[in-house]
């Protein structure tokens, strides 16, 4: 069953995450609305992964509020997340997708057809019966994407899905993400790859040390960064 209400916009209001005396995320204020992809950009350790987990609802903030479409208790049903290293269930490629479909409440009779369509969509039709754990890194990311898409999400959160992939695999993942965005799914993707930002982003959130340093349209961020840190990052200098 699909919740009739929307998870968008996703709003973070003064959200902080602390572990003991360490501040991981510091008073984030953020609104993610429907539309073209938003990329969360920043150096390693900036808190991108933590932010995505909060957006998914996997972790709770230690301060502040998160709302999805105005509700604080929205179930995860219409969100999906792709981890940097997704876990492949010990079964075939097709069975991994069928598993996600079953969880999404798709009746058994419709699953085979949907599995076929999703395999087609991520280009894994030939590997349907291959054990998922024996797929290559890029293939595993594409399978994880198919699993995420099986949930028919409104928001798809991705945590540097191409970080460990070669250019060809990166391209095929980006193509799937692109087409998902075109089909109306809100993409929120973490990346520290400026080329990827240029290729995919419509909107950029730039984070440094757990805080949002700058946000705006991708073109503005790349061509006219307003903060020193953003300018250094775009130039390719090390930002710590």
């Amino acid at each position, binding site marked *: 069953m699909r919740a009739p209400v929307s998870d968008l916009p996703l709003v973070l209001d003064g959200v902080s995450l602390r572990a003991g005396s360490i501040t991981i995320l510091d008073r984030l204020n953020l609104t993610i609305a429907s539309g073209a992809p938003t990329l969360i950009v920043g150096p390693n350790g900036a808190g991108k992964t933590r932010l995505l*987990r909060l957006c*998914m609802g*996997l972790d709770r903030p230690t301060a502040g509020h998160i709302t999805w479409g105005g509700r604080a208790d929205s*179930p*995860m*049903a219409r969100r*999906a*997340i792709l*981890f940097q290293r*997704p*876990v492949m*269930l*010990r*079964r*075939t490629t097709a069975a991994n997708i069928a*598993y*996600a479909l079953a*969880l999404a409440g798709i009746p058994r009779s419709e699953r085979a057809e949907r599995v076929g369509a999703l395999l087609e969509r991520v280009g894994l039709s030939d590997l349907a019966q*291959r*054990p*998922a*754990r*024996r797929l290559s890194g890029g293939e595993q990311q594409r399978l994880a994407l198919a*699993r995420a898409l099986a*949930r028919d999400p409104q928001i798809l959160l991705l945590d540097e899905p191409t970080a460990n992939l070669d250019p060809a695999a990166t391209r095929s993942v980006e193509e799937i993400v692109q087409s998902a965005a075109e089909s109306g799914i809100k993409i929120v993707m973490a990346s520290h790859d400026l080329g990827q930002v240029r290729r995919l982003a419509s909107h950029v959130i730039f984070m440094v040390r757990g805080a949002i340093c700058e946000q705006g349209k991708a073109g503005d961020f790349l061509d006219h960064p307003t903060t020193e840190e953003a300018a250094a990052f775009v130039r390719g200098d090390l930002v710590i």
Partner: protein
Amino acid sequence: MSDEFSALQLILDGDAALFAIVKLSLAVSLSAVVLAAVIGMPLGALLGLSRFRGRSLLVVLLNSLMGLPPVVVGLAVYLLLSRSGPLGTFGILFTPTAMVIAQTILIVPIIAAPTRQTVEDLWVEYRDELTAMDVGPAGRMATLLWDARFSLVTALLAGFGRAAAEVGAVMIVGGNIDGFTRTMTTAVALETSKGNLPLALGLGLILVTIVIAINAAAWGTRIWSERQVG
């Protein structure tokens, strides 16, 4: 025929009584393994995934119960099933059913304890993914058990080995009745007490051979299916 070869001779002769004993031993121990798996695996998974006060105590207890002495289990089941016991009305003392019950109790911890460990370890890896997929508690247990299936084969084999090898419990609750509740192990005990040591040893060797064969088959199946599923 010389004593040393009497057990071998029984096999070569296709001795019906011997085969009945082997069949009963396998039927009882395999039934116990199936039942113990049905009980012990969900139990282990549940314990592996739950967090509550006193959980560590329960884990220690479960691990300790792996060393449950068969004769203690046998005695407890005997007192339960005896006509004078609380479950006496069923009249199942001195039957294969009683033996299955005793062995099941004996090996539930042997299956549940490693299942708990395996599921708990796997949960560390799967937690985020399954939580993000909104998998409920029952679904988590089922998924983790299924994905841990190759490791769990080892737990099943340990349970089977224990069941097939024990004599204390089946002797007490089965009564070692000729042609009815006599298993490989009670037959070995009987032949030993008759002073028929070569035959006892021969029967013991047959038992060990069967256990090795079953382990080899299970291992082979595991390797084969791991290759299939990766």
